[in-house]
């Protein structure tokens, strides 16, 4: 809660001290002084900073994010539209990332030091080093332009068929997932290796359980804690970090909304969306803490 208040002050301050007046920006360089002043009054920009800050905050608490300077439409509506692109995209990328990382990480951990391990770890090094927007461009060339399996950009609205929508999010999700999957595989591998060296694993093995049974029934569950942390971090990253990928694929998501708002000096949109993202990050971290308790009964008493 305190973090949220502080975050709101910081965001407000950054945007306040930034050069560029939204009113003069909207009206262009030839605008008259009094027109600018009138617009400033209409937008509420002539009030002092403190009262503007409080009206912004109190509005947001009630779900009223204010009105966009450039589009003249309520920001909450704009966000509501965009979130149905960004949220599914982040989830989609996370699912892909997890589906790759779990098998890859577990496999590498069991093959530790062998060829399979080295191959998987080498691949993840590449995955981390590849800029996702570059990977996105390559995906577009191969799967959209050459093979024509997917469209090169844009988003098919959900009303026009869920399958089509998911299809239009597939390439962006893969591009987003690649570095995340690489990081997650490495975390999975090292967490599993660490648990496999614990005494209770040796006990389980000594009791005659097979290697596979030990991994599935004992080790994996205990290795999940660090993995969950990273998944939580990645989800919040994916929600906000898709900004460049949304740019590559012309997806009408939150990232693109912020990006356009920044370039158009639509500061109230910028403030509100960034605030929402910070809120999302803090909430996700909280959920991860609860997920810990489910994965690790020892932590339950503390939460």
């Amino acid at each position, binding site marked *: 809660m305190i973090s949220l208040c502080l975050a709101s002050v910081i965001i407000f301050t950054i945007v306040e001290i930034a050069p560029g007046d939204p009113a003069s920006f909207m009206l262009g360089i030839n605008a008259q002084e009094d027109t600018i002043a009138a617009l400033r009054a209409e937008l509420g920009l002539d009030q002092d900073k403190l009262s503007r800050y409080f009206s912004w905050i109190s509005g947001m608490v009630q779900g009223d994010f204010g009105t966009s300077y450039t589009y003249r439409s309520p920001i909450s509506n704009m966000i509501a539209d965009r979130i149905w692109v960004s949220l599914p995209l982040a989830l989609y990328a996370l699912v892909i990332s997890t589906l790759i990382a779990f098998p890859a990480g577990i496999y590498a951990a069991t093959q530790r030091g062998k060829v399979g391990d080295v191959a998987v770890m080498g691949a993840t090094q590449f995955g981390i*080093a590849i*800029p996702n927007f570059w990977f996105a461009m390559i995906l577009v060339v191969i799967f959209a332009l050459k093979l024509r399996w997917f469209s090169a950009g844009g988003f098919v609205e959900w009303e026009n068929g869920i399958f089509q929508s998911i299809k239009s999010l597939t390439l962006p999700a893969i591009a987003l997932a690649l570095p995340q999957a690489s990081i997650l595989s490495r975390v999975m591998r090292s967490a599993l290796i660490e648990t496999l060296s614990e005494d209770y694993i040796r006990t389980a093995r000594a009791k005659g359980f097979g290697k596979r049974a030990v991994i599935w029934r004992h080790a994996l569950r205990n290795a999940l804690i660090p993995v969950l942390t990273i998944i939580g971090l990645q989800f919040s990253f994916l929600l906000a970090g898709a*900004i460049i990928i949304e740019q590559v694929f012309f997806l009408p998501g939150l990232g693109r909304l912020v990006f356009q708002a920044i370039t158009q000096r639509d500061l109230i949109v910028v403030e509100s969306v960034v605030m929402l993202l910070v809120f999302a990050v803090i909430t996700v971290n909280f959920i991860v803490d609860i997920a810990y308790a489910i994965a690790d009964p020892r932590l339950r008493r503390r939460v």
Partner: protein
Amino acid sequence: MKNGSLIFGALLSVLVIIAAGVSFLWVPFDITQLSIPDKLQTPNKIHWLGTDHFGRDILSMIMIGARTSLAVALLAVGIGFSIGVPLGLAAAARKNSLIDEVIMRTNDLIFAFPSLVIAILITALFGAGAMNAIIAIGIFNIPVFARVSRGAALSLWQKEFILAARVSGKSDFLISAEHILPNIANLLIVQGTIQFSLGILAEAGLSYVGLGTQPPIPSWGRMLADAQTMVSFAPHLAIIPGTAIIVTVLGLNLMGDGLRDILDPRVRKSRE
């Protein structure tokens, strides 16, 4: 094989550094000279990596671009290091005090901000350009260094040699500077390598959306942005700068991993 990743990573990194260094003295072609008749050539004997849509030599641009990437990332890491490390050391020296609490809570707060969005916000509002990109990337390096140095310093404060230094009457500041810092230098170098490679990626991303390095100064991210519309008929325009980024980041990461294996006995043991 044990130091294979260190050697391979160092080789790649040195390659990039040499390319950047040589570009100060010599590049194959003058990149300010546009030559439309030579445009969009694929790699050949004269232009080893081909030419772009203005007929500029891509190898020359990659070499100068290396300079840009390294400089931006290095300065950004420098900001994070020079502010983050003192903060982390101060927090560790006064564990659980108000200073510690304030520094660490601020850290958590900065971590909660979507770094890319804020970087874009800073560069867009205060003007696109290399300098603002450095600041934007640098700010998010501060909490990383603060956290790493605090964590490492905390365990050192329990050690006997620190106790001895305290008994001899040294101030917390002197102990941090003379005893703690040299002992956590290894960790900081490893973290620095990782942040450096992240800085390269961030610079490329910012330049790609047009908010980082501005033309005519070549930058890898910028080259990728230019390539986007032509990638279907001139894929080399995208493949070459992309490869340059991958080689640099891969080299730095491998070097960081290798260094950690050597410098951190704990990791060394668990790998054996």
